[in-house]
């Protein structure tokens, strides 16, 4: 690698990592509000996050909402993607456009829309309302990830499986699904994170009962700048980092196990 490329790389890393270098120390601070550099080091705010219901409830709400958003998104997007990628039908391009629409509309506009529309349906201030709104926001990105993968899927694999005796259902279970599993996982993860992250719509329609974590953080930073916010950010970062490393770790152990078993039983390891 040449020197200037390396320099750009270093800049990029610093730029991305800089917030972390500030947030992580702040979460360990003794100060009563967000302050950098921290006057002293203390784990107290971690303790208060894990004991304070006014933080734990929104966390729980966010997890529940993200979970159901993911479920609903996948239930809608998976069949829709198969239909849009593999079949021709009247109105296909309009349907395609509709799937991507939420990407083009600013969240704040969507939020105002949901606020007035859900009001009539009595869905404002309920988890159901937030799940429905978040699902709309998750659909485009999930659809984009899945359709890109499905377009690259070799249909001859399915034909081969059919000729070998599999019914369409068996083809889906034994061939299509396992091969698409990584991209399904990734798109589900996108839906989950999109919902867990979402602030604007949540601010408008989550209310007190369905208050989500980002909304609580937003309220808190406006009112008291509680360092618990830094704690949560640090924890989220750790979770994401672990999630990213997990597949590598799994692959590594699987490979090690495989070579070990191959060594002990040299022939019949099929």
């Amino acid at each position, binding site marked *: 690698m040449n020197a200037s490329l390396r320099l750009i790389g270093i800049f990029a890393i610093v730029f991305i990592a800089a917030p972390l270098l500030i947030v992580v120390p702040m979460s360990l601070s003794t100060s009563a509000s967000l302050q950098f550099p921290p006057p002293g080091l203390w784990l107290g705010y971690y303790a208060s996050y894990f004991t304070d219901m006014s933080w734990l409830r929104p966390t729980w709400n966010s997890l529940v909402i993200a979970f159901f958003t993911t479920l609903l998104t996948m239930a809608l997007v998976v069949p829709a993607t198969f239909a849009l990628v593999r079949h021709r039908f009247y109105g296909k391009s309009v349907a395609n456009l509709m799937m991507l629409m939420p990407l083009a509309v600013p969240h704040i506009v969507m939020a105002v829309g949901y606020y007035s529309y859900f009001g009539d349906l009595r869905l404002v201030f309920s988890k159901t309302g937030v799940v429905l709104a978040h699902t709309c926001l998750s659909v485009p990105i999930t659809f984009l990830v899945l359709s890109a993968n499905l377009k690259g899927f*070799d249909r*001859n*694999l399915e*034909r*081969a*499986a*059919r*000729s*070998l*005796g*599999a*019914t369409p259902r*068996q083809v889906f279970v*034994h*061939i299509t699904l*396992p*091969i698409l599993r990584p991209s399904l996982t990734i798109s589900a993860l996108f839906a989950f994170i999109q919902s867990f992250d979402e602030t604007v719509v949540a601010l408008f329609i989550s209310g007190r009962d369905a208050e989500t974590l980002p909304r609580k953080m937003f309220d808190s930073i406006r009112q008291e700048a509680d360092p618990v916010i830094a704690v949560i950010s640090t924890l989220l970062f750790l979770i994401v980092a672990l999630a990213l490393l997990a597949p590598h770790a799994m692959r590594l152990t699987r490979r090690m196990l495989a070579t070990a078993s*191959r060594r002990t039983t040299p*022939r019949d*390891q*099929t």
Partner: protein
Amino acid sequence: MTSYLTLSGVNKQYGAFTALDHVDLDVEKGEFVTFLGPSGSGKTTTLMIIAGFEDATDGAVEVAGQSLAGLAPQDRNIGIVFQNYALFPHKTAAENVYFPLQMRSVKRAEGLARAEEMLTLVGLEGFGHRYPKELSGGQQQRVALARALVFEPDLLLLDEPLGALDKNLREQMQIEIKRIQRKLGVTTIFVTHDQSEAMSMSDRIVVFDKGNIQQAGRPLDIYHRPQTRFVADFIGETNLFDATVTDAAARRAQSPVLGEVSYAAEGLPALADGQEVALVLRPEQMKLSRDPVPGRMNAAMTVETIVNFGDSALVIGRHGGTPIRVRLHGADVVILKEGDAATVSWTEDAVYVVTR
């Protein structure tokens, strides 16, 4: 002999486009038949109709006297090998080969044992635990073949299975496929657009063009007795000369290049006096000399190019505007040089007539 696979009047339309135009074909049990033809001539379409992935617009397909109409692909018991192999990437070689048995409710242990046997037959003993991406192109090809054969299919269809392999591997796999096919006696249709592959492997060759079967026959018959202008032109090196039949009963025609010509009696289409035809003369069946040779038919030409291959040479000459290709062997090569006036000569039984 009775026909095992029968296509009768098979038609395939894609909108207004006719991909297959009334295809009739009989294949005997255990026969190795090759579909040969240029790109887009309908070879794959025919295979897909036999396999059940496309519906014929019209016509019928029968195997062993049973119509395949309405039978789903998974119920047809037909093994297919695709050009890109279509191995399941998430399954090992052995699991790939086990898959058709799994679909037939064979127990895993027994199925994997049979898969391993089949892998041994195709020369992949001990490779069962590898994933497709850990195998070379030739090895993947063998796995695909094993997978298509392990469930003892009634038919084996191979769609340009060797297209992606380099020349040496190709020749090796040609021999290998032939060996396995003979051993198992499975009725096989092999698609290629490589004519030497078709010549060397097939019991019979079916030549496709524009959705039509131009000719079906044994390799040497296809080569020496082409029935259409397309086949004559497509298979091997050929000279084609336009001519008009002057006396159908005496087998005589008049050609602007060759003059008054008699043609062979074998494999003649029905001809009438005055009919426009083309005369086929293979380059290796013509001779070149300075002067006309008594006892042979002769025509004048000017030597333009000599391409030397060592053991033979291709002489390309011209008579008027028409090129004439002559293949010479050994000592014949040296007597002429480019620019010379020469005489081509041939005998009556080397001239075949195809309709225009």
